[in-house]
């Protein structure tokens, strides 16, 4: 199964990726080379089977970019020098063993990190050309542009399905012309419309886990975010719901950037265009390697990446 993208463009993107991560660009991608091949064929096949999107690289802000992010809890250094570009219209997966700071990292992207009393950070998060941590920035507006879906589905139980989807608007006191249109469009995009269209006035707690998670996705969509962060959104769900949500993720990436933290490498291979591999050796978490998902799973540059994706640890 061959990749369907243009090798030239791939190399361009590789270059810009390597600029961002500061590691050396590889020379060629030799799919037949033996010495760097990955032993688990399935991951490579899965990665190669997917249509890789060509994302618009961010040069001047039309997307989300993390520059030199460090994070602390008190005096404990938990993230070191993370720089990543999140191209518009693509899905980026963050993989790595648990405890290496992936969840902390995405919480820095939508300014939820600061709720923890001992939290501190360094670096910048650039959205539309401006650092979201600048003084004078309205943090609630940032969270409207950078949405989040959590690991455990958390619809508001005191609200009906309809109220849940529109809750983002109510919380931010945004007025819209046609609430019902927005309601249907968000539920359709989240893949939930057909299942709940007759019971929009029932309470959100009556749905199954997978349905609740899709409800949460619809809820995030209602405020029209540019970026959607997802923190292991399927880890509490059964495989059937997981696959449906992965479909949803692929479709949503047409209109926004998605960043998904996942422990499930097959999921990363299935769903993402770009992947970042995090690792911590007992100290702060570092971004070991990032690149197209194909590269990471078929032909990783770093040995540690290769060890992880081939299951030798983690």
């Amino acid at each position, binding site marked *: 199964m061959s990749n369907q993208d243009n090798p030239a463009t791939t190399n361009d993107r590789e270059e810009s990726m390597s600029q*961002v991560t*500061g590691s050396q660009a590889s020379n060629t991608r030799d799919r037949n080379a033996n010495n760097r091949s990955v032993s688990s064929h399935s991951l490579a096949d899965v990665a190669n089977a997917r249509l890789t999107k060509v994302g618009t690289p961010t040069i001047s802000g039309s997307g989300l970019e993390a*520059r*030199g992010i*460090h994070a*602390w809890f008190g005096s404990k250094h938990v993230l070191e*020098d993370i*720089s990543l570009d999140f191209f518009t219209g693509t899905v980026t997966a963050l993989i790595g063993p648990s405890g290496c700071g992936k969840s902390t990292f995405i919480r820095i992207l939508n*300014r939820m990190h*600061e709720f923890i009393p001992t*939290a*501190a*950070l*360094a*670096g910048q998060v650039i959205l539309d050309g401006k650092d979201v*941590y*600048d*003084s*004078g920035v*309205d*943090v*609630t507006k940032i969270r409207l542009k950078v949405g989040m879906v959590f690991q455990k589905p958390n619809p508001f139980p005191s609200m009906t399905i309809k109220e849940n989807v529109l809750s983002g608007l109510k*919380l*931010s*006191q945004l007025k819209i012309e046609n609430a019902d249109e927005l309601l249907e469009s968000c539920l359709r995009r989240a893949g939930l419309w057909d299942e709940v269209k007759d019971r929009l006035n029932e309470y959100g707690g009556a749905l199954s886990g997978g349905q609740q998670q899709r409800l949460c996705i619809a809820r995030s969509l209602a405020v029209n975010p540019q970026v959607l962060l997802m923190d292991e959104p399927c880890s509490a769900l059964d495989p059937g719901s997981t696959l449906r949500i992965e479909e949803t993720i692929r479709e949503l990436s047409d209109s926004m950037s998605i960043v998904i933290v996942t422990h499930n490498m097959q999921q990363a291979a299935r769903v993402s265009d770009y992947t970042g591999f995090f690792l911590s050796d007992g100290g702060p978490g570092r971004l070991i390697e990032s690149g197209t998902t194909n590269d990471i799973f078929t032909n990783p540059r770093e040995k540690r990446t290769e060890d992880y994706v081939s299951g030798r640890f983690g």
Partner: protein
Amino acid sequence: MSQTQFAVKPARPWKLSIRSLIPDILGAFFTVFGSLAIVAITPLKGKLGFALVLITLAIITATTVSWLRKDRKAAMNSRTTVLVYIAAAFVIIPLTSILYEVVRLGTAGFSLRIFTEDMSVTASDTDLSEGGLLHAVIGTAYVVFFATILSTPIGVLTALYIVEVKGRFAGLVRFFVQAMSGVPSIVAGLFIFAFWMIQMGNAYSGVAGAFALTVLMIPTVARTSEEVLKLIPQDLREAGLALGATQWRTVATVVIPAAKSGLVTAIILGIARVVGETAPLLVTIGGADAVNLNPLDGNMSAFPMYVWKNLLIGSPNAVSRAWLGLFVLMVSVLIFFAMARYFSSARRRSA
């Protein structure tokens, strides 16, 4: 971005900088001086007037400033923040006043001498250099001591029934104990009066008061003990039973020692609850002026009675004595309260 050579410093860019706080500080100044101005101009006068104007102006200013700077939702948020701070102030101010006044008015006549004399030979009217409250101390000690002796076993047994034995009526007992903790103290006193005095023909005495306080103390001890016992993890009990112990042995040698400091807390909280109760004593112990060493016979005094009697007399010296009694009472309550906190945190430390 390549790795930086220098050490990177942690920062908290979300913390409000002085610059961003300038509008709020200006708003605060405006509120204070505006209130002073309004009070000077309008008929609203005095501390109350100033307070009212200050509060109203603070709410309006905060809301408007946020509305102009950001939007409606931020304005509503600021308004609520101001309201919440005001509510907290409304709680702190009375407490501070109470503590301050009790200390101010109560320590006037304080000396260690008052713990050695009673009021049997001194009239309440006389100057505070004579007389004391020994009778109240002894009376309170008796009454509380007997109440503790009676209510502790019953309270702890009740908790054991609800948590360990889980009998058929456990839910009912729990509900009734909860209800009992709401019984007004005067009703407890009336009950003992009806039962011990009318029915059984006794006169005012210390034990009658102790009985009344027992009725009030049992629910507190029972409820706190129940919570404490519930906190003991089930594994401990299972470990005991798995070793072949009977339920009795498990409870006695595993559960109760583990819950020891919590149970002590429960008892102390019960004591703190009843040591200041007035109404039940008013109808059961008779309020003596002299030290009475016999709890079973004769009028007895206690702190609340002492205060009450002096309050009713009403002359300046009597009122001063009342405050003095209040002061000693408050100090006792605070000591018990501190002890309860100490024991409950000792439990957490060793748990």
